[in-house]
């Protein structure tokens, strides 16, 4: 586990190269030909995914492209009609609710709690399937850096803190080899907390895996090992993060020209939308 300090650190500086380049063995989650239909509309079409131990997958794409739909289909809480197969290798063929809960955890975009629980109580809820374990709860709270605020009521916490509490709950719920499914975990979260969350995700991914959806392609490049780009419910590209998250692919996904900006020598490029001030010629068809 990385110690959390106050000085801003460059998340990418601590990527162990072995994780990013590990061969895809030991799959934890295999999804094949997932389709989600709401009545006549097809929200997700023919998505296949293979998540192995140590991988952090980023789902990137514009609004309504099917990121959340895919995450929910993977979690097993998808609304609408879901076809295709999702299989967590750690559990038997017809898993009980408890087994499944230990193999995968889902955190929605805006976690809500409708009771007057403290942060620690909420994290403890994650242990429903497994049984109480104060040590695991402590570890989860420490992972997200909320050990000091654990006794506060959930409603007193800021948005970013709530996100971290929900994350800690998911940490407490999973076995070591579990898959985290996170819907926009960085939405409305300020940079310091982004870094903290990224560090704890990195730590979790050492023995498990993470699949998360993002709006910021640059952040995806910085955090993820693999990526999937979606548009209109279809998968445009997927694979290793560095190869998939290229300006051309992203321009097609967002329907807006994207540029790569190198940040210092030898560092990963950041991808931003082209602003009209730069007078970039549109290189991709408009939406």
């Amino acid at each position, binding site marked *: 586990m990385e110690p959390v300090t106050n000085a801003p650190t460059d998340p990418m500086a601590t990527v162990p190269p072995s994780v990013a380049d590990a061969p895809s063995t030991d799959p934890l989650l295999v999804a094949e030909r997932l389709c989600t239909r709401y009545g006549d509309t097809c929200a997700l079409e023919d998505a296949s995914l293979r998540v192995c131990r140590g991988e952090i997958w980023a789902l990137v794409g514009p609004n309504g492209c099917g990121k959340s739909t895919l995450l929910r289909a993977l979690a*097993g809480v998808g*609304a609408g009609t879901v076809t295709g197969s999702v299989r967590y290798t750690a559990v038997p063929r017809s898993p009980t609710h408890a087994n*499944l809960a230990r193999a995968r955890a889902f955190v929605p975009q805006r976690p809500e709690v409708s009771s007057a*629980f403290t942060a620690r109580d909420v994290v403890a*809820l994650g242990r*429903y399937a497994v049984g109480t374990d104060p040590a695991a709860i402590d570890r989860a709270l420490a992972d997200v850096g909320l050990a000091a605020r654990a006794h506060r009521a959930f409603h007193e916490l800021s948005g970013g803190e709530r996100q971290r509490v929900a994350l800690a709950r998911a940490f407490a719920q999973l076995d070591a080899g579990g898959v985290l499914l996170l819907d926009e975990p960085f939405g409305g979260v300020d940079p310091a907390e982004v870094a903290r969350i990224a560090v704890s995700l990195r730590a979790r991914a050492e023995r498990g895996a993470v699949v998360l959806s993002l709006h910021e392609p640059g952040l995806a490049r910085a955090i993820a090992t693999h990526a999937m780009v979606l548009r209109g419910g279809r998968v445009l590209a997927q694979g290793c993060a560095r190869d998939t998250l290229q300006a051309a692919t992203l321009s097609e996904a967002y329907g807006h020209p994207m540029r790569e900006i190198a940040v210092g020598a030898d560092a990963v490029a950041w991808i931003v939308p082209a602003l009209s001030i730069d007078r970039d010629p549109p290189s991709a068809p408009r939406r």
Partner: protein
Amino acid sequence: MNAASHSRRGFALLAAGLVLAALLRVSVGPVATEEGTALSLARPSADVLSLRATSVASAAAVGAALGLAGLALQILLRNPLASPFVLGVSSGAGFGVSVVLALAYATALPAAAFGGELGGAVAGALLTLALVAWIGRARDAADPTTLVLAGVIVGAMFSAGSMLMEQLVPFGLRGDLLSWMAGRLPEIPTKGLFGALLALLASGGALLVARARALDVAALSDEEAATSGVRLGRLRVELFLVGGILSAAAVAYAGPIGFVGLVGPHMARRLVGPHHARLVPAAALAGAALLVAADAARQCIDVGTGRLPVGVVTALVGGPAFLWILRRRPWSQ
């Protein structure tokens, strides 16, 4: 004060409130004077003690059932304003009663031939539950809004149906339904009925306590709860059954009595905290205390035209209690 002792104090307060209210109820009553009867505070003689004790026992049982039903429905519908009658159970029971009365008039047979008011109430309440469940399942069963709407619609239909049934009865004989809808706590022990109510109360309470941890998890959003290992579908069905059947039993036994099922769970939450292992028994205790207190208050009021129905007094007692609860906590809690 830490959480555990806070909840112990809460339980002690509730129990004390219940006992004090029961004591008041048992001690206040009419005594004969030269001017007729007057209310007085005194130890009861043996023959009225059994009447008053039955009233207290009825109030405690009905109040506990309403408290539990209110809690179950507030969790199921994710709505802090849900009451045991949000599913339309009281309207359905009223409709059943009105049908029995209309049949009794039309056929000149006694109402007991059709099951009496009690039979009508039970049949009507169960029919309402079945209808609401059916409508709720036809669409997305996981959506609490659907259930609330179904309850509102079915309740409105049955209310209108009751009014129609009333029209079939001649003018001078109407008003039986209105009298039933005011609610009354039986003073004469009817052992079979009371035993049935207690049995339902015990099994409903036991089920909710057994599911206490799952109910805690249900405070999260639906998706988080479902992926935490809680069998959300089964939990919803259980909450619906407990809430519906307990409120049907309460309505059949004592008529519709409002406010207790709405305020009781909130009072309990305020006093013992949000963990359901404690909240479930506290909600039952709070409901019992509220209704016994309302009955005691009613006993102390002499309007001159006879006793007030207890449903009138629950609003007078429950309203200020609700305001006190709202004042101290933000609504989201």
